[in-house]
């Protein structure tokens, strides 16, 4: 089965700073989705990357898929307290015939005002 490893596992940044989260796959990546979850709340879909080199943005969050490296990076520019939460990546192959989402272990982000 495909395994996803996210790094770092946790991150604390000062408000206004840029940051990058990586998601690395054990197998070829045919696509990847990113979600965010605030503590104690539901998940929020951020974006889906479907081909190598694809880059998408959602507000100040940009994600890119590097098929050759089997990796996706998520970059936040000028972080704000509203960016705090856990970021989760997952492969679309997990949807299969049940629609279930599967994720890496997540990266928890704290943004200090």
């Amino acid at each position, binding site marked *: 089965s495909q395994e996803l490893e996210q790094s770092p596992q946790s991150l604390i940044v000062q408000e206004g700073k840029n940051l990058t989260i990586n998601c690395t796959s054990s197998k070829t990546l045919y696509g990847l989705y990113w979600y965010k979850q605030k503590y104690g709340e539901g998940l929020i879909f951020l974006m889906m990357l479907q081909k190598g080199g694809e880059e998408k943005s959602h507000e100040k969050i940009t994600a890119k898929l590097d098929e050759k490296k089997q990796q996706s990076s998520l970059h936040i520019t000028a972080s704000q307290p509203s960016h705090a939460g856990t970021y989760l990546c997952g492969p679309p192959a*997990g949807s299969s*015939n049940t629609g279930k989402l599967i994720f890496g272990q997540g990266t928890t982000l704290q943004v200090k005002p």
Partner: protein
Amino acid sequence: DVKVTQSSRYLVKRTGEKVFLECVQDMDHENMFWYRQDPGLGLRLIYFSYDVKMKEKGDIPEGYSVSREKKERFSLILESASTNQTSMYLCASSNAPIWSSYEQYFGPGTRLTVT
């Protein structure tokens, strides 16, 4: 704005009680899902439904049942609550075909404690 609502944010029930968790979506989505989320175990699919009155088991259906009598409502039932069902329960919906349902809309979650 897309909206998925769940009947309770916090719930405390006793062992052996029958528990109903309700989920309503206002997006006319075909698919609805029930997950539970536990520290260290991540998100696990309990049941899903791709149409009214249709339901399919996910990875951990034991001890649970579901009902989907109307398109907008998907109910999760704990027949006889046990302490190992203490968890965060998340409902989601999507409108893509099941095999490409990676864009799901989630409710705020119900934190259930069974004592």
